[in-house]
């Protein structure tokens, strides 16, 4: 049905072809008439020019001593003529002289006397050309009245926003921002700082940008932002009226609303500070602060507030990946390019261990999944276990695997893992917890069998 309307519209617009050609031909045939206002302006300018020329002629022909041609004097060097007010009418006559500046003997007057001292108009000047004196009133280099503004270059920006007087409507590369620039977003704006570092500014937000030697400081006056600062690059700090947020290698959001600021951390941790105290929320936690209070104690949150940024971020991120292509922090056997579990008599048929203390293998994401590509030679029970060092607890998940020569993918949500020692920790894996060892244990007790693992991947799913 729409096609019919669209076809009619196509015909409708095509119906103007003839008229359009006439308009184009009229344009090309006639010189573009300037507007009447412009013509009037030209006429006025012409009249003014003629008047000025007459004035020039008049003053040039008058018998008064005039300045030597070819020199441009700064101030009065000769004794002033008897008429004290002659300097004013002479002014227009001198202007059209060629501006050849001879190496001027230092002038005795500056255009602006330092103090407006009332002088007698008839009194001759006490001293005229005084060579040593001019040093002081010599035209001083213009002193900057304002401090130089620091400038930073944003690698790329997306979205619709105003930056000071500029209107940014499409994707921009290498956008220069200076201290004091105010960014007012209409839609979600993305400010890319480096490869893996960017700031998403929520719709209808107002941010003052303050680049400095240490990086980029963002003063959030209104609205919200989400900073993803994973890779290397310039430091970013965020401040609101209520607090200052110092990221410690992390992903977090800041929302400022009527003197109340909430900081939500998705990855890593941040330091929220104001004059009344400091709080350090970690992944999956929220801190609220206000103009007149200390930052609250970190409380768990579900990150639903980050939903506005969802379409501007990749849906998932790989937090850890091991494909056993080369020797690494894992113990097992290499069999035809993949890892094969080692037998562990009394414990299980085969096990594959991976471990790294510093840096940890990965930090437990708020929402994540462990994906294992494997195959086995017989059906058996298997469990996957990892150790979260900050709560000093193993988390384990039992599964039943099938026998088969085909590679299968086992996907386990992190939420499905349970602590092995409930007296140390109860509940789910704490977000942000560093995982220092990871193991796959195949078969029970004295069972026999083998497991081959092609890869292990930990995927962080975005809220």
């Amino acid at each position: 049905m729409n096609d019919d309307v669209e076809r009619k519209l196509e015909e409708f617009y095509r119906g103007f072809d003839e008229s359009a050609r006439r308009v184009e031909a009229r344009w090309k045939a006639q010189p573009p008439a300037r507007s009447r206002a412009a013509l009037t302006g030209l006429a006025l300018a012409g009249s003014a020019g003629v008047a000025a020329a007459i004035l020039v002629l008049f003053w040039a022909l008058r018998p008064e001593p005039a300045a030597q041609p070819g020199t441009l004097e700064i101030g009065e060097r000769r004794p002033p003529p008897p008429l004290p007010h002659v300097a004013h009418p002479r002014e227009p006559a001198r202007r059209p002289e060629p501006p050849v500046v001879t190496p001027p003997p230092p002038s005795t007057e500056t255009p602006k006397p330092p103090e407006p001292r009332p002088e007698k108009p008839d009194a001759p000047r006490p001293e005229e050309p005084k060579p040593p004196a001019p040093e002081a009133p010599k035209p001083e280099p213009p002193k900057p009245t304002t401090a130089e503004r620091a400038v930073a270059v944003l690698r790329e920006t997306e979205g619709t926003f105003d930056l000071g007087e500029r209107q940014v409507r499409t994707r921009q590369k290498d956008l220069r921002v200076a201290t004091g620039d105010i960014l007012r977003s209409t839609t979600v704006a993305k400010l890319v700082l480096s490869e893996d570092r960017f700031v998403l500014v929520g719709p209808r937000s107002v941010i003052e940008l303050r680049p400095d030697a240490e990086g980029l400081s963002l003063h959030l006056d209104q609205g919200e932002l989400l900073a993803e600062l994973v890779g290397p690059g310039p430091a970013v700090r965020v401040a609101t009226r209520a607090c200052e947020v110092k990221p410690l290698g992390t992903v977090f959001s800041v929302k400022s609303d009527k003197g109340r600021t909430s900081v939500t951390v998705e990855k890593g941790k941040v330091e929220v500070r104001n004059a009344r105290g400091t709080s350090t929320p970690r992944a999956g936690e929220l801190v609220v602060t206000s103009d007149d209070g200390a930052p609250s104690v970190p409380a768990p949150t579900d990150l639903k507030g980050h939903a506005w940024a969802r379409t501007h971020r990749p849906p998932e991120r790989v937090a850890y990946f091991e494909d056993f292509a080369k020797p690494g922090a894992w113990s097992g056997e290499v069999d035809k390019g993949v890892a094969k579990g080692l037998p562990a008599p009394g414990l299980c048929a085969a096990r594959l261990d991976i471990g790294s203390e510093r840096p940890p293998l990965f930090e437990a994401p708020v929402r994540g999944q462990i994906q294992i590509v494997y195959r086995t030679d017989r059906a058996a029970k298997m469990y996957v276990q990892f150790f979260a060092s900050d709560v000093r607890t193993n988390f384990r998940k039992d599964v039943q695997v099938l026998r088969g020569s085909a590679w299968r993918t086992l996907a386990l949500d992190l939420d499905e893992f349970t602590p092995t020692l409930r007296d140390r920790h109860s509940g789910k894996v704490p977000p942000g917890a560093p995982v220092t060892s990871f193991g796959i244990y195949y078969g029970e007790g004295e069972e026999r069998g083998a497991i081959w693992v092609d890869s292990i991947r930990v995927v962080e799913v975005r809220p």
Partner: protein
Amino acid sequence: MDEEGLVGAARRGDREAYGTLVGRYARTVMARAYACTRELSAAEDLAQETFLRGWQGLARLEDARSFGSWILTIGGFVCQEWVRRKQTAEKHRYPAARPAASRPAEEPDLPLAEAVAELPADVQQILALRHGAGRSCEEIAQELGKPLGTVTKTLSRAYAHLRERLVRR
């Protein structure tokens, strides 16, 4: 030469370049003006006036890539002024029997023009860019700084409106 280059050349005073731009957008501007005036000759005058103002105000165009939407916006203002002038003139004139409309056969579809004229100016602009200038929805979204979904949804609603209006007639 691409559009950005043409606008740049026109800014430097190149009338040929601006003439090329006129050729590109004359149909679109004409359609917009005709939707307002419903008279082909008046629409041509308004289109001419629009391009003249565009030429005089080229220095104010910030983004050379959005010349199309910019000139259409000027066209909208010119049309509004024309309507105001016409209303004022009719207020101070004795009502006279208007001659029967004797439209030449080649004049575009008047009912469709009237239906288009009922749409808000920004919707008319999107329609003109889509069907008059042959832009894709992505290009329109980029040019107008609107989300793609907004453009497609606006077009879809415009089609629905036009369909309803044409069926009612």
